[in-house]
């Protein structure tokens, strides 16, 4: 299990663009955390610090309280698996099954174990039947699921999903929600970056709101999507999920999920 910590983290890209300022964040093992914020607010930059792909220009990144500055990305990758937004920056193998087995192999697992982990992960994301296909013959949504399987096969204590639902239909989103729930009940930490407010509110227990490279809000969906925070959300071009807006309009409290809204309406009428 790994506790993640960022202490006063700032990051400036080599071209001078500042992406993060004074980020303090602690994520305990097993938490379900969504990071939301406008395009370019620093979300992807932040998660790239968690496995050392980017090193902070200010502050420290900690795993279980220890600074990771001296650790190699290969070692950190055993703890934090990141599924990137763009699947085509991640895929390289000629076969779906070898693509997924690559991760556990470089972590030093025996070939047979890696192959078994790959088979399991492909089943979990629903690509079991495509194990022998060429990754580039898959559609975009399937390539996204393939990169998810690649990270699942590595059994990292922390799994980071950057925009996992883009390009997925309703069934694909439901499948991703099941994968996240299973990871969570196995005690693993799941972080996501998403613009899908409904997905975020219905799947995650903690929401971190970013704007211009800083953390603006951090709390449960019911806290972050409560009416007093709407101006802060609007400052980073976010609006709460429809269910929360309807609940507020009807004055029945904070209802970030559609099921919660309907429950509250039912209580109101009875």
């Amino acid at each position, binding site marked *: 299990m790994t506790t993640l910590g960022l202490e006063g983290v700032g990051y400036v890209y080599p071209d001078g663009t500042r992406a993060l300022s004074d980020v303090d964040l602690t994520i305990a093992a097993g938490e379900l955390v969504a990071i939301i914020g406008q395009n370019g607010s620093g979300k992807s930059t932040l998660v790239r610090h968690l496995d050392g792909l980017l090193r902070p220009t200010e502050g420290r990144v900690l795993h279980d309280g220890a600074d990771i500055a001296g650790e190699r990305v290969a070692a950190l990758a055993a703890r934090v698996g990141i599924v990137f937004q763009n699947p085509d920056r991640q895929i390289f193998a000629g076969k779906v099954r070898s693509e997924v087995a690559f991760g556990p192999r470089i972590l030093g697992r025996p070939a047979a174990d890696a192959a078994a982990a790959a088979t399991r992960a492909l089943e979990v994301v629903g690509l079991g039947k495509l194990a022998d296909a060429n990754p580039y013959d898959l559609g975009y*949504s399937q390539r996204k699921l393939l990169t998810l399987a690649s990270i699942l096969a590595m059994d990292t204590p922390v799994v980071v999903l950057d925009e996992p639902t883009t390009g997925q239909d309703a069934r694909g989103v439901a499948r991703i929600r099941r994968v996240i729930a299973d990871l969570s009940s196995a005690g693993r930490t799941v972080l996501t970056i998403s613009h899908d*407010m*409904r997905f975020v509110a219905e799947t995650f227990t903690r929401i971190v709101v970013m704007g211009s490279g800083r953390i603006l809000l951090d709390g449960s969906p019911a806290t972050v999507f409560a009416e007093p925070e709407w101006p802060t959300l609007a400052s980073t071009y976010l609006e709460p999920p429809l269910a929360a807006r*309807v609940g507020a309009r009807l004055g029945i409290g904070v209802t970030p999920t*559609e099921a919660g809204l309907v429950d509250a309406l039912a209580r109101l009428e009875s």
Partner: protein
Amino acid sequence: MLKLETVSYRYAGYATKVLRDVDLTLGDGEIVGVVGANEAGKSTLCLVGAGLAPGSIGGGLEGRVTIDGVAMTGRPQHEFATRVGIGFQNPATQLSGVTGSVFEEVALGPMNLGLPGRETVARAKAALATLDISDLAEREPRRLSGGQAQLVVIASLLAMRPAHLILDEPTAQLDPEGTRLVGVALRELAASGAALLVVEHKTDLLDGLCDRIAVIDAGRIVLDGAAGEVLEDPRLEAWGVEAPARIRLDRAVAERGLDPAILTGTGLGARDDA
């Protein structure tokens, strides 16, 4: 007008048809949404409509593709390109990779159309302003976030002022404000007479944007009608398409045996606009 008549298509090296007997007409000034499950054929439909399939990637096409009354079947790709623009699903695929700044990237299209320098600059500036990304003008395209890249790609398409435009999930990586601005820009483009085809999973977006919506399932158009009617269709879920939030909530309230009027006045889309 962009018209597909009994169009079937299979990718090169494959026997299975990915599109089957597709009939779809996009009138001038019309915005048509296309929805369907993953792998139903939505992206292939985009490639065929823009002539990239089979023009660039090969494969077998049957049926007729007509643009503004001109039969396009078998025509070279560059003839399609002057009549219809296309925005791919993955914006990273679309960035040219040959420009050093966002401004140059957006100006590249009009420049390649042979427009005078002054017009090229004016169009690039206008397109960036339309999507509120003028502040990205000096940034390196490869350093953009996913959502920023998507906006830059759409700005590049707008700057070319395409006669017609096909977009494959144009807002997938956008925040709500970016999504809203793209909607405004698409409505403006349609108002100028362009036919637009927009593939999207976000039915909440299509709800306010489209005149018509077509549902594609296993390569066939299974439903094509007025946006409001299609989005209310109870078969959508079986086709892997989620109804917009306003309709989902209406149904959830009805299923609980609550009075649907309870949602009136809550800003839930169509009913309150009416």
